[in-house]
């Protein structure tokens, strides 16, 4: 190996995480390359410095006690509360039966969406109402063209009652369409 390897390879080399074959090649390179040797030594020094830290710092007994208690509670809680999916799966036949019963009840109890015939007015009624409306419009028009200036009570129309000379109030013989419901 003549070319210097990537510097990150020295991390794997120092950590002992290389395959034997690659490790031997790097070793051979180190013997011939002063720069890489310095690089590798610096990386290895950093890695061994970490050994000064206590890998398993002691925990206070009360912390460990609390931890044990909390873990036991969490594990027990988890054991008695299976997930929703697991519950549904366990009772899948009961769930299917419940869905079928609910569907049958809904079909039986909910009102039909079909519109009853009684909600429609029949043709005779429609013709009669249209005739009444037409008659009212004709009376209105004839009154307006005749230049009626009185209001509906036979009084003389004032400025507030007229628009361009026409009364805004209906004449006395105007049929009461709103109240006329047969």
């Amino acid at each position, binding site marked *: 190996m003549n070319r210097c390897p990537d*510097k*990150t390879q*020295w*991390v*794997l080399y*120092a*950590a002992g*995480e290389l395959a034997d074959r690659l490790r031997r090649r790097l070793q051979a390179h180190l013997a011939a390359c002063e720069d890489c040797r310095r690089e590798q*030594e*610096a*990386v*290895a*020094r*950093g*890695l*061994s*410095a*970490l050994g*000064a*830290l*206590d*890998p*398993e*710092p*002691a*925990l*206070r007994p009360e*912390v*460990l006690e*609390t*931890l*044990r208690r*909390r*873990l*036991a509670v*969490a*594990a027990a809680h*988890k*054991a008695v509360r299976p*997930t929703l999916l697991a519950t549904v799966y366990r009772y899948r036949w009961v769930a299917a039966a419940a869905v079928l019963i609910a569907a049958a009840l809904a079909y039986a109890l909910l009102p039909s969406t079909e519109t009853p015939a009684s909600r429609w007015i029949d043709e005779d009624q429609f013709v009669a109402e249209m005739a009444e409306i037409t008659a009212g419009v004709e009376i209105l028009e004839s009154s307006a063209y005749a230049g009626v200036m009185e209001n509906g009570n036979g009084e003389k129309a004032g400025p507030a009652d007229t628009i361009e000379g026409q009364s805004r109030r209906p004449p006395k013989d105007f049929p009461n369409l709103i109240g006329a419901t047969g």
Partner: protein
Amino acid sequence: MTGRVNDPENVEESLVAFAPRVYGLLRRLVGRPDVAEDLMQETLLRAVRSLATYRPEGKFRAWIFCIAVNLARDWMRRQRHEPAALLGDDGEVSPDAVPAPDEPPDGPVLRRERRRCVEDALARLSEPDRTVLLMRYYGNLAFKDIARATDEPLGTVLSRAHRALRKLGDLIPEEPS
């Protein structure tokens, strides 16, 4: 730290076995022992609650440490907290207090000094660089496992590790042999 997590009877004890190392990582990440204790508990509780989402193809240990790192990052984001110094003596039980049988009387002092030196150097690293080293050390994870757990390319993880280790190597004096 090698409990059989697939055994429901054994899950709690397996998780408790992770507690010291998870706490160690969190302590170096957030810089506060009290917060690290809380986050460690939260990490392991989340693990027990989300065992169903754990993908067996990944390492369980990597998954646990990934939860811890995410919680620490959330906390730091909320606090906008960068630890100025990652702890000196804070009253915790220290294994440095008594000299080992084959070391000189000033051994504990030298070890404590060196540990503080490493802690200071770690505090100078950026959070992502520091996290890679801490996952490697406390999680005892290979770099490829860290890459898989954090969903980052291996090249990115190795670049971070290289930058961080070079800096540590430059900042920390050689250990006297």
